[in-house]
């Protein structure tokens, strides 16, 4: 599944940077029923993790009330250049990853 990441390519050491991550997912709550009355099985993302150079910097647990195609935005102090790894994990073995790089200049 697709994901869109928005991280500045460059930052100055000590800058606070915003990291934005949008991914494609239906986030089916498990509370809806079909016209025939059967429950539509829950199908959501349950966890999101962002690692920077291997170290976890942000994590979120997701619940059924979250909208489809969840969008997250969070902040970090840019101290070093490196690579972001994003991972979404969900029901029925759902898993998707994305990455982005940051280069820090003095």
């Amino acid at each position: 599944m697709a994901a869109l990441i928005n991280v500045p390519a460059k930052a100055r050491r000590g800058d606070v940077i915003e990291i934005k991550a949008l991914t494609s997912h239906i986030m089916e709550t498990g509370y809806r029923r079909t016209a025939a009355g059967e429950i539509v099985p829950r199908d959501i993302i349950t966890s999101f993790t962002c690692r920077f150079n291997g170290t976890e910097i942000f994590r979120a647990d997701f619940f059924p009330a979250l909208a489809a195609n969840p969008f997250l935005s969070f902040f970090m102090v840019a101290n070093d250049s490196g690579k972001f790894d994003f991972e979404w994990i969900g029901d029925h073995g759902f898993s998707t990853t994305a990455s982005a790089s940051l280069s820090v200049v003095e």
Partner: protein
Amino acid sequence: MRRLIAIVVLLTTPSLLHAGEIPPAERRSGYSFMAPDTKAMQDDDTANPGMLWVMEGEGLWAKKDGASEKACADCHGDARESMKGVATRYPAFDQTLGQPVDLEQAINLSRARHQQASPLAHESRELLALEAYIAEQSRGMPIAAGADPQLAAFVEKGHDLFIAREGQLNLSCANCHDDNWDKRLAGSAITQGQPTGYPLYRLEWQSLGSLQRRLRGCITGVRAQAFDFDSPEMVELELYLMTRAAGMPIEAPAVRP
């Protein structure tokens, strides 16, 4: 002299505009009615969920499909070149069918005629993704649908549908979107119903959706029986709406509340 010019202008221009129609200078995209947060979502390609479909469409464009084992790209090449401006001209007249087809129908016709592939279902992820990818290539370009003289009769039929009262509420499209677009219905802006951003991401849908889906929602809203997907009436309405928005820039994939 000025009076003479005024008369000449009166004699030459009004035939293009139906009575009660919004003059070009007052045409406003649904975008202009939105809250700053929703505008910001549309403006940022990494926050606009419609771009997820565009990305997927880019992948499908190059994917081989059907008995022909051909991809869209095998005939059309790079969509960024070949599909530029295409969405501004749909619905367009199909010579074989002798009637207008919208962009989604054109995609499915091309699949059938050149890929020997089965049609993609309405509102399916794949069809919306391809449509979004193609429409995105026309971003910022002015809508130019309906210029083909073979379409004139269909535009007229679309206009008749637009002004026909229907449903238990006995309302026509024009009652809201021509006559009362500067007002509000409950908390929401009524808007002019300009089809500049389709396929678009509606927060209410939590998904991308087509203009036909939107029209069916509106028709159901006045408690009338909605036209079927791809029915001639649907396409005529789409066609009229596009001519009504002539010159407005394409925003696809737009975001709407």
